[in-house]
């Protein structure tokens, strides 16, 4: 019996992380006193008892072939202490207990093409999604957009010259798996889905698709004698929510799926409360393989922020001080009627005061 030969999974869940900690980190677990940054890409932590650990942070392409991972392991074995971790933004961190190992480790990483940086007031690696490489609903690629942008932002990764840390994300549909960020690049569809009525009845659970629409624009319909769905195109907000449960409702379009830029997202509670990011630009072409129009807008926003923000201001803090009119003035981005929120709760985004900067 085939069934009897199947191996039953061991439901072991999350493995114990203590086995993978550098001995100095294991010993001083929960007992750290402070840290500083001797140079970009290096953290130096000191425990209450005086023990120290140095961390060297290197950027990776996230989607790594096993040769790259083995190369990084070779470096970790030869130049570090064989213990590594990854940050939430796919940077690899090498921990060493001896300060003397820091410089040779950096040299070896750089020699092999891994940028050392991403700490403190730098532009760190972009949090990103799967895109055309693996996702079933992508409007664009992820790894390619990130590679293109990080090539352009390389100097900002290896230096710490921004007013505060800058966190970027990209997302290849409006579900926004890349998440909130100081600057986020997100697909924005501009046309309703194109429906393949021959397939809907067989592929889609129609009531579930109807329920998925945020604006109730989808209704069951008989098209060419077949049960299908139809979209009230005047109501449709082109969000693409119907596409994952019903692939015959194709939302992605090489021409009309555009890219939008959002700014001021912030998860940290430091200073002003956590903020959602706000859309400030849209209509950018999905211009593979290097997306130059997107890079131009992102770099421009970063340039203005770098010149204008005060130390410790994240993009959200900076805009909180200078105000939105000045943000649009300084960046030269057009403030169009589409940037005025009309979704539920939108009145809280209107200026209910006479607070106006002139």
């Amino acid at each position, binding site marked *: 019996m085939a069934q009897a030969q*199947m*191996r039953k*999974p*061991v439901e072991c869940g*999350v*493995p114990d*992380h203590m*086995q993978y900690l550098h001995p100095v*980190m294991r010993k001083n677990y*929960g007992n750290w*006193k*402070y840290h*500083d940054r001797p140079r970009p890409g290096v953290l130096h*932590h000191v425990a209450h008892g005086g023990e120290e650990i140095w961390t060297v942070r290197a*950027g990776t*392409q*996230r989607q*790594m072939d*096993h*040769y*790259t*991972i*083995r190369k990084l392991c070779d470096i970790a*074995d030869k130049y570090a202490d*064989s*213990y*590594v*971790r*990854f940050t*939430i933004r796919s940077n690899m961190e090498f921990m060493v207990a001896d300060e003397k190992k820091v410089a040779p480790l950096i040299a070896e990483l750089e020699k092999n*093409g891994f940028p050392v940086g991403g700490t403190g007031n730098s532009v760190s690696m972009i949090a990103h999604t*799967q*895109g*055309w490489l*693996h996702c*079933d609903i992508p409007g*664009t*690629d992820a*790894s390619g957009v990130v*590679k293109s942008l990080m090539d352009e932002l*390389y100097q900002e990764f290896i230096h710490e010259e921004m007013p505060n840390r800058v966190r970027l994300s990209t997302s290849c549909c*409006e*579900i*926004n798996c890349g*998440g*909130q960020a100081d600057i986020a690049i997100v697909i924005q569809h501009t046309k309703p889905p194109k429906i393949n009525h021959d397939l809907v009845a067989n592929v889609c659970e129609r009531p579930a698709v109807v*329920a998925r629409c945020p604006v109730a624009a989808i209704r069951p319909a008989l098209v060419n004698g077949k049960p299908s769905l139809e979209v009230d195109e005047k109501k449709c907000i082109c969000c693409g*929510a119907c596409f994952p449960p019903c*692939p015959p409702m194709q939302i992605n379009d090489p021409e009309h799926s555009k890219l939008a830029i959002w700014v001021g997202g912030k*998860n*940290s*509670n*430091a*200073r*002003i409360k*956590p903020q959602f990011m706000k859309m400030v630009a849209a209509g950018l072409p999905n211009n*593979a393989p290097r997306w130059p129009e997107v890079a131009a807008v992102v770099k421009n926003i970063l340039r203005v922020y770098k010149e204008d923000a*005060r*130390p*410790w201001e994240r993009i959200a803090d900076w805009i909180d001080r200078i105000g939105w009119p000045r943000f649009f003035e300084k960046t030269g981005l057009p403030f169009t009627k589409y940037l005025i929120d009309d979704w539920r709760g939108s009145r809280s985004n209107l200026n209910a005061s006479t607070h106006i900067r002139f």
Partner: protein
Amino acid sequence: MAKKPHDTPNLDQLESGPWPSFVTGLKRLAKDKDYVVDVLGHLEHSYKTRKGYWKGGTVGVFGYGGGVIPRFTEIKDDKEQAVFKDAAEFHTLRIMPPAGMHYNTDILRKFCDIWEKHGSGLIAFHGQSGDIMFQGCTTENVQKAFDEFNELGFDLGGAGPAVRTSMSCVGHARCEQSCFDEGKAHRSIINAFLDDIHRPALPYKFKFKFSGCANDCMNSIQRADMAVIGTWRDNMQTDAALAKKWFAKHGLNELVNDVVGMCPTRAIQLKDTKAVSKDASVSSVAVNDTQSIEIQNRDCVRCMHCINVMTGALAPGKERGATILVGGKRTLKIGDLMGTVVVPFMKLESDEDMEALLDLAKRIVDFFAENALEHERTGEMIERIGLVNFLEGVELDIDASMVSAPRTNPYVRMDDWDAEVAKVNAKKAAA
């Protein structure tokens, strides 16, 4: 040697430039694997036509209902045959990482060996939910690869309407700002929900995330259904030697502009040392021979800013724990929602504290399972039923820290106002 590579003029352009190139990596793999030759061809086709061509399906491992992301090609010729036939199946295994994403080279090399043998050789550290993503596997090899990962002590993560893989920050392992043992909390909670991870049966996804302080490096507030964020409730700690060292390097202007002036609740003042308040709720530290900063801890909202600037000179207090927030999520369907407070403070030190956290997590997931509509996240459910109904359902007491302001409209039935007042007063008297 693998078969001849496809022309990839678009992808080739992603090999230049200083940032490490995933295309170069894929090409290295394609030297030995026909599979990756066709993956490159498939991806180039997307670049050319600007569309995606993978569809989902059903692929899994024996005994589990989720954790594998199936992908089948949709690039077919007119006979309905896959154009890139060696990459017709390109599934991903989501494997849960250790808390804090710590590894040693030994385990990473073992991952490489398994994935070189059974998969494409392409691994992403990590996906946005926190999984190690072993990308690119045929249906036939999914079970073989999983069995080997599982033998190493690793397990599949969540996918679909399930409790999902979690993330926790570096925290206790290497951060002075950590307010609870994130790894222990992460592991105790997630490993108590393995059935809900491996056998998706919830209304929709449910995510836990663990950040050791309010800097929230795990982005938990906006993407976790239940965010556990470290905080403290006694006075901030100070260190005179490090404060003086900081001041000597940065000076008065930075102290005023970057520390005192940026406190969101104006809880910090610069004072002559001899005039510093002796109040029990005040923390203070001298920065030079005559001046001190004075922090009124009752006004402090534990935002972390001044501690970030003067790390070590200022530090979280000793009575540490976490604030619990529920309901964070991104746009679909009703719009973005931040997590909001449901427990202002709970201690997270002893095993009993961890059990209390787990008990709360179970009550919340149970309530979600029973009350959310299909495809509705916790935040949307709370928006629909109201926070008070949710709190009563999970047996949590209300607290003024849960709101940014009380009600601003009179549209509410308040028949039982007197009874509620009596309850609040009785609670105050008992405290």
